[in-house]
């Protein structure tokens, strides 16, 4: 039974399960982005634990798992968590994370005790809270317009739409309070209200996800896509879009992988989200590990080429001849020849000549600047100039030249080539 067989013989059921996972992931991504950006991820973790007693009490009072009352119970439990953490923080000056730690572990323990005490009357069992039953969601359906729609999908879909709607409506408020809460409050935005709203939304997303992937794995869905998106793009609305996409993708690939390896879908989805995050760390444009390694290699190559040109220019200027041997040097010479900067015998061609002149000019101008602005003895000037020559552009060179009074020679007396 390989993947193709799965897609071919699909009885629609797997698609419903995947769709549910995707919608839950999307809802979590919407809220998760704001949590991660406002450094409240651990509140997301706390809430996903603390909703348990809220849910259990709601079910004990007769609410159906996944029904309206359970949503209310969870939101109340979430807000209680946040309020208690605040009371501890202001009451006795406990740090936020220790306070949250005390509150959510206590509430979770209360939830577990309630479940075991009332085990006979309700069919909630502790491990189903932790696992979720995504696989069996398609069997619990409602008739909607002639089509059997899983109840969990409807709940999750509804939650996703109102989260998306709420966030899009209050977009600028969330953006302002996320970026700089103090300024937003000063500008009259109800930052406290927005925060409470965000945490209530987190509780909603947790409950929507609770039945599908279990309370704990909702943490993965809340935080991981948003954290990965934050590495890839830098505008808040893009981060949210990418987070939704990563969440949905994680849900789909996770479910298929779970089918392939015959294991829990919720667990595999969390693992796939983890892999997505690792890939984001690796391939993020700009500051990703590969991007940084690529840029470092690029710089090293540029420095080697420019040093070679400068050495050649100084040799032709009658200065010291330092022909470096070595593999890198041969590679650089090969490239310089191919790119028409030096001739076959190593002499500078016009293109090489102008570039080399600019490098030496940067070098000697920087030595002049250091001589003037920093108390450095003569023999200390060369190493910093050797480093800065590769980073000085024409406009800044012009400013330095003006600042040091257009000197003809550098502090060592060698002439500074013109800008040309």
């Amino acid at each position, binding site marked *: 039974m390989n993947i193709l067989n799965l897609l071919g013989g699909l009885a629609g059921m797997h698609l419903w399960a995947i769709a549910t996972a995707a919608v839950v992931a999307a809802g979590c991504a919407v809220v998760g982005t704001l949590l991660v950006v406002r450094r409240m991820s651990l509140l997301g973790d706390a809430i996903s634990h603390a909703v348990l007693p809220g849910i259990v009490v709601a079910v004990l009072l007769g609410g159906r798992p996944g029904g309206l009352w359970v949503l209310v119970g969870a939101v109340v439990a979430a807000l209680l968590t946040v309020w208690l953490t605040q009371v501890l923080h202001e009451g006795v000056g406990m740090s936020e994370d220790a306070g949250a730690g005390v509150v959510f572990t206590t509430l979770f323990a209360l939830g577990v005790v309630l479940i075991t005490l009332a085990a006979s009357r309700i069919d909630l069992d502790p491990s189903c809270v932790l696992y979720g039953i995504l696989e069996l969601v398609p069997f619990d359906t409602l008739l909607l317009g002639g089509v059997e729609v899983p109840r969990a999908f409807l709940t999750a879909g509804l939650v996703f739409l109102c989260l998306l709607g709420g966030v899009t409506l209050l977009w600028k408020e969330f953006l302002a309070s996320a970026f700089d809460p103090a300024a937003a409050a000063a500008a009259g935005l109800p930052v406290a209200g927005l925060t409470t709203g965000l945490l209530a939304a987190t509780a909603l997303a947790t409950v929507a996800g609770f039945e599908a992937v279990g309370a704990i794995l909702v943490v993965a869905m809340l935080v991981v896509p948003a954290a990965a998106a934050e590495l890839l793009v830098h505008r808040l609305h893009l981060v949210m879009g990418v987070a939704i996409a990563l969440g949905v993708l994680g849900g789909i690939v996770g479910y298929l992988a779970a089918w392939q390896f015959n294991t829990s879908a919720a667990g595999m989805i*969390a693992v796939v989200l983890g892999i997505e995050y690792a890939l984001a760390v690796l391939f993020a444009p700009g500051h990703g590990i590969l991007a940084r390694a690529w840029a470092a290699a690029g710089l090293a190559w540029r420095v080697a080429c420019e040093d070679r040109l400068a050495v050649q220019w100084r040799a032709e200027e009658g200065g010291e001849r330092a022909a470096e041997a070595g593999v890198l040097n041969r590679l650089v010479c090969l490239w310089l020849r191919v790119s028409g900067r030096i001739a076959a015998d190593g002499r500078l061609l016009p293109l090489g000549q102008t570039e080399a002149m600019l490098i030496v000019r940067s070098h000697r101008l920087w030595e002049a600047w250091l001589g003037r602005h920093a108390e450095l003895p003569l023999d200390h000037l060369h190493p910093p100039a050797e480093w800065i020559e590769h980073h000085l552009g024409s406009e800044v060179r012009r400013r330095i030249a003006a600042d040091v009074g257009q000197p003809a020679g550098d502090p060592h007396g060698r002439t500074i080539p013109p800008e040309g």
Partner: protein
Amino acid sequence: MTGPFPLPYNTLVVAGGMAAVGCAAGVVGCLGVLRRRSLAADAASHATLAGVALALAATGRRELPVLLAGGLLTAIGSLVVLVMLRRFTRTREDAATAIVLGVSFGLGITLLSGMTARGIPGSAGLEQFLLGQTAALTAADAMLLGCLSVAAVTLVWVGLKEVVLVAFDAPFAAASGWPVFAIDTALVALLAVMVVVGLPAAGAVLVTALLVIPPSAARQWTDRVATMLVLSGAFGLTAALVGVAISAAVPRLATGPVMVLAAAAIFAASFFLAPKRGVWARWRQQRELQQEWSRAGRDPTQAPTKAAGRSGP
């Protein structure tokens, strides 16, 4: 053979094991809270599940030491990943902790479920590590937990001044030559050991409570680290014993969660009643100050005699 007091054997064994774990968790937890590493311990505790599953898959044996050893490996592994995330990525610490927590727990469940689906013998019972299986503690288990707890507390007492120095003022510690990163790593490793020792007691999800609640309660009573350690150990021990007692009295009640609730009760009491820091004490102080001012207000010459509370900057 009824012992000196007619407590059943199992209750004694469980009480002994859990008392040691509760006390050690309280003591080590103090340093975790002071160094703001307790939520990293939460991530480590969720990671133990994957370790337990791997240990069973690798060795096929179900004895507690084997499973706990597996749990320790992944707990420390998750803390290493956490450090690497903080150093090599732009992701902030709270998000990184949540990532490690969520993904490692997901991995644990994936492994467990995969093994059960493949009918690997004994994998069915591993869920007990999620919520703790205290009542089924045998003497050998209790002995193991006891020794680890005593070792942890001794380590804390021996290296106390180094850890407190680093927790209080890391730059000063580094400047005066202490290897701050090494001391931090040792503390986090000790937290991971305590997470694993606490696993059978409270389970992967609640073991953080044993490391966070007693120290937070102890902090309300004292301004000295040494006293805080002793108090936190005592609170952890008391919570454990109360949890065991209740679990022995009421049928069908798991010991782990009850221990956590007992610790929470102790914390609540400390939160309100502690002298100086407690809410009631502060409220009383506030009221006295207002009364003095109002009296002074009526009689301008008689300013308040003693400056109550802290003379703020």
